[in-house]
C-alpha cells in the first residue's frame, strides 16, 4: 500500500503580535525557536515570555532544522486528501506539531529522521513541515 503525498490547501495562520519573525524566517527557508537568556531553556511554540521561568528575555535563534518523528497519524477521512500530522522532536530537544510531506505517507515511522522543508498556505505564508532526511 502506498499513500503518495498530495499538496493540501493549508489554513492561513492568524498571527498574534510577536509571531511575525517566525513566519518571515520561514519565508526565507529558516526554522526559528525561542531561547530564554535567563534559564537557558529553548521552547516551542514561541512566546513572548519563557514558559519555564516567565522571563521576558527570550530571543529567536536558528534551529538546525533536523529531528526525529515522535508520533504521527495519517488522517485519511477529514477533508479531500490524506495528510500526515506529527510531532517532531527537534535536535534542540523540543517537540513541535507539524506535517510530514513529500514522501509516501505509508512509509512514515516513529523515530524516523526528518529535515525541515517549507510549504505555502493558501494565502502564501510559508510554514515549516518535515520530510524524511
Amino acid at each position, binding site marked *: 500500500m502506498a499513500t503518495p503525498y498530495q499538496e493540501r490547501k*493549508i489554513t492561513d*495562520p492568524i498571527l498574534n503580535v510577536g509571531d511575525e519573525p517566525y513566519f518571515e524566517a520561514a519565508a526565507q527557508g529558516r526554522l526559528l525557536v525561542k531561547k530564554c537568556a535567563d534559564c537557558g531553556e529553548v521552547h*516551542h*511554540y514561541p512566546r513572548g515570555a519563557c514558559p519555564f521561568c516567565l522571563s521576558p528575555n527570550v530571543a529567536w535563534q536558528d534551529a538546525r532544522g533536523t529531528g526525529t518523528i515522535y508520533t504521527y*497519524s495519517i488522517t485519511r477521512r*477529514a477533508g479531500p486528501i490524506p495528510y500526515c*500530522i*506529527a510531532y517532531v522532536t527537534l535536535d534542540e530537544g523540543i517537540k513541535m506539531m507539524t*506535517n510530514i510531506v513529500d514522501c509516501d505517507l505509508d512509509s512514515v515511522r516513529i523515530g524516523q529522521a526528518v529535515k525541515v522543508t517549507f510549504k505555502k498556505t493558501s494565502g502564501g505564508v510559508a510554514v515549516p513541515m518535515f520530510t524524511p532526511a
Partner: protein
Amino acid sequence: MSINGKAYIVGAFEHPTRKAPDKSVAQLHAECAKGALDDAGLAKDDIDGYFCSGDAPGAGGFSMANYMGLKLRHIDSTDTGGSSYLVHLNHAAQAIALGKCNIALITLSGRPRSEGSSGTIVRSRGTGVPDEPYELPYGPVTVNLYAMVAMLHMYKYGTTSEQLAWVKVAASHHAQHNPNAMLREVVTVQDVLASPMISDPLHRLDCCVVSDGGGALIVARPEIAKSLKRPLVKIRGAAEAPKHQMGGKVDLTYSGAAWSGPRAFEEAGMKPADIKYASIYDSFTITVVMQLEDLGFCRKGEGGKFVADGNLISGTGKLPFNTDGGGLCNNHPANRGGMTKVIEAVRQLRGEAHPKVQVKNCNAALAHGTGGSLGHRHGSATVIMERE
C-alpha cells in the same frame, strides 16, 4: 480542608433526545434542569448555586441564570471542555462545604449533531489564541490528535488495534440495553477493525458518537440530601489537573489523570481496588486505555491487555465501565461527555442502572473526564462517589 462527605448528588437527569433540531440550546438546558429537580424532589427556587461551562449560551452563566429565572448566591462557569461537569461537581462540593450555597444545579446541553459538528473539522477557538498559528496550518482535528496518542501507545507498549476495539465492544454490550442509545447493535472486534480508517490507527468505530442533548445534576448539603426520598450518593473525593505541551517538552504517554486520579483517591481515602464501577471518558477507545492506566487500575502500558477479552463488560469483566453505552455508543451531548459519566455513576450507586448492566452491591464508583485533547491540551477531572 476536604470535601469528603460534605456534599451529595441528589438529582441526575440525562435528556433522552439525541437529535433536537427544533429546540434551542437554552431550552435544552432548562429541560435538563427540570428533569434533575424532579428526580431530586426539589423545586427551582431551592437552587442557590449554578454551574455551567463556557459553551452555554451567553456569558459566564448569566444568560442561562436569566433564562431559567434562577436566584443565586453562587455562580461558576469554569470551562475545561468535556470534563467541565466533573470539575463543577468538585467546585459545587467546595462551595457547599464553605457555606457559599446549599443546593447547586449543574447543566449542560448542545446540538452538535443538528449543527453538523464533527471530529474531523479544523476549528479555531477565536482571536488571540497563542498556539493556533503554530498548529492550525497542520490540520489538527479531534480524531488525529487522539490518533497520535494511540500511535505512540502502540509503538511504546505494543498495544494493538484489537485491544482498543475491545473498549468499543464492551460499550456496545451495554448500549444494547439502553433504548435511548444511538448505537444499540452489539459489535465485535472484527467489526471495529473492518470499519473505515479515519486517522491511523483509529477506525470509525474507535470514535464516539456526535449527539444533541444534555444533562443536569443537583448537589446538596448532607442534611438536605438526607431529607429527600432518594438513595444517598456521597462525594468522597475530587480533583482536577490541566495538562499541556509543557513548553515543547511534549509527553503524550500519560494524561492529566495521572495527577487528578491519585489526589481524588487520597481525598476519598480509597484506592482503585475499592471501585466497583467506573465511568471513563470515551471520546475514543484510546482515551479509555490511557485513563485506566493513569488512574491506577492497571500499570502504565498494560491498558491494552486490561481492556481486552471483555474485562470492561458488566457481569463478566473485572471493571464494569460506561454501562449506559458511554460516548462510544450512547450519547456525547454537546461533544462533552463528563455529564453523562456522572449520571451513569449515580444510576449505578442508586441501583437504578438497567438490570442487565447493574453492578451488584455497587457502593463505590469513579467518574473521570478528559476535556480538550490528549494530543495537545486537556483538563482532567476525577470524582469518587459512594453509596451511603
